[in-house]
């Protein structure tokens, strides 16, 4: 497929590279700051290259920066986030899959309206739900527990996961399900035997999306997590948003990148499945 380099192709590549620079600039600023010394930063050159590269900020962010009374860096908070994110992602994805299956394959009178109703849920500003949610969780006895936090994430993730799966299942030919039903296959059989095996791509999309949202969430984490099991974003916030202390920007940036590593990793490794999964039908409304 050797293409000759026409003017058009050169312009095309130039445009793509230029755009890539725009996207990479903030990452560059973060990375270069994280390997600078504080004096280098104080000199006022934020975009400039570091004079000397040092990894001190990284090791401090990982194991000795203060996030509260304890000064043990970010490492302890990773596990907290994992414990919260994994069940939330799996549950919301699974429930979304079943919901999507119902509203696309088993339509009944009013199912469209109900779907729209659930969809509105993704537009509610999260700041609005904090206080009533806290009251409710308190009454259920799961306020400030990981369980409570998982419930919150699942509830507010449902709208999107349902949307993803519904849009995917809508593209599946009717005949497939009809034939199965004539053969006597029931509701669950069709779901587990016929649809699940072909739902791989959309599962990828959904898991990536939910994982990013939940891992990066700060507001629910700070409010609903138990004190000792705060997620990593709260630790990052505590490290970065200090009020009246000395600001160590290099440590801040290193910590920020550390907190973002899992999501970055997911996007780098699974990014191709993301587009592939979307191609498989998620965007065919």
């Amino acid at each position: 497929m050797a293409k000759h380099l026409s003017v058009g192709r050169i312009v095309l590549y130039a445009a793509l590279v230029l755009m890539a620079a725009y996207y990479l600039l903030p990452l560059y600023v973060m990375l270069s700051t994280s390997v600078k010394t504080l004096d280098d930063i104080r000199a006022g050159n934020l975009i400039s290259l570091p004079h000397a590269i040092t990894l001190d900020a990284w090791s401090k962010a990982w194991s000795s920066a203060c996030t509260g009374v304890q000064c043990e860096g970010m490492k302890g908070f990773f596990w907290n986030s994992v414990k919260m994110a994994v069940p939330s992602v799996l549950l919301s994805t699974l429930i979304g899959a079943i919901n999507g299956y119902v509203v696309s394959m088993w339509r009944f009178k009013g199912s469209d309206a109900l779907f729209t109703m659930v969809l509105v849920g993704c537009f509610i500003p999260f700041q609005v739900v904090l206080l009533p949610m806290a009251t409710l969780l308190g009454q259920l006895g799961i306020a400030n527990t990981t369980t409570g936090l998982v419930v919150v994430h699942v509830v507010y993730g449902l709208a999107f996961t349902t949307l993803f799966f519904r849009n995917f299942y809508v593209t599946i030919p009717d005949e497939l399900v009809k034939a199965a039903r004539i053969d006597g296959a029931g509701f669950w059989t069709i779901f587990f035997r016929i649809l699940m095996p072909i739902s791989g791509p959309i599962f990828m999309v959904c898991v990536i999306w939910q994982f990013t949202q939940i891992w990066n969430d700060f507001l629910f984490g700070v409010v609903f997590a138990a004190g000792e099991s705060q997620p990593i974003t709260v630790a990052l916030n505590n490290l970065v948003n200090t009020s009246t202390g000395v600001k160590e920007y290099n440590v801040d940036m290193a910590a920020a990148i550390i907190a973002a590593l899992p999501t970055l990793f997911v996007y780098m490794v699974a990014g191709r499945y993301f587009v592939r999964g979307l191609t498989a039908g998620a965007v065919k409304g």
Partner: protein
Amino acid sequence: MKLKQLSAALLATAILPATVFAGEVEVLHWWTSGGEAKSVAELKKMMNAKGDTWKDFAVAGGGGDNAMTALKTRVVSGNPPTAAQIKGPAIQEWGAEGVLANIDAVAKAEGWDKQLPPVVSQVMKYKGQYVAAPVNVHRVNWLWVNPDALKKAGAKVPTTWPEFFETADKLQKAGIQPIAHGGQPWQDATLFESVALGVGGADYYKKAFVKLDQATLAGPTTVKVFETLQKVKGYIDKGAAGRDWNLATAMVINGKAGMQFMGDWAKGEFTAAGKKPGKDFLCVAAPGTANSFTFNIDSLAMFKQKNPAAQKAQSDLAETVMSKDFQEVFNLNKGSIPARLDTPMDKFDDCAKKSKADLTTANKNGGLVPSFAHKMAMPSATEGAMVDVISQFMNSSMTPKTAAERLAKAGKVH
């Protein structure tokens, strides 16, 4: 001792199966930067020595905005922390909601009334009873000066506003940014209140920002304050908008700027950069405020606990916070001075000693005023409305007269 605790714990769990365990304190705070965290860690150590466990609940950001959100949800879910970093009139607001615990027993036994200046102890009480313990006193009306920059410009350290503008002019001529400032609402308000105190004096300040007297707020002195502020604005660079306070401090440290209006926490930035007070940088009172002292007190408000063991731990916490040892260690790290008057000052640096001396004088001559930019003087709604006006003034071409009118209108919000 251990047996006693254990039986208390058993008793507590038998009576009330609450999630709070015996002898445990959970403290909500936003002291998360290196120096601050070390100071709070001292408190944790002291609590552990008393046999209580410390459950940390740190939420930083926006001067406690995020922490307040977390606190509110905790309280409505019926699960409040033992203590939370709340200050000023907010203590009264929380008291009015009926959720604060009375710690008078500890205060009486320890004699807090004698150890604290009345202005401070007033803040800690709701309806005459102690509900909070102070940890420190920050002075807000400081002017931080780079003496080398001033020398280069042939200017002297200003003590009055006319002198200040003279110095600023000289600095500008010498190509040095006269004032380092960060255009965030709270910094604008910090600058404003120093100007107000310097131009109007302590009596005006109290009338306007503590009593919220409408005539004073809309009066000619306020207009004059805004006029001065407008002039000050002319010496601030355009890039100030949104700048963090410590980046502004860095401008003074490296001589790009001559002066900065900021509270005593700025000292930490200077010392972290290896600068010595009195030699590499100067801490002087903001122009015209040498006899006054704008205070900003951090305190821990105590929340009602159901569990008797938790109540006992809460008393331990209150007692420890007010101990001389803690007050000394905490403030050495934080740049502020101890709230407790009889804490020895010999380990503190010159800026802190000066702060302490000025606090004592100001306390005598009536120049001790609460900082409203740091939520010490008025209800949070009023404070928010006033800060809105001030930061709009700083970022638009609003005239001083309009600003004064709007400030008076903001004074009615509550």
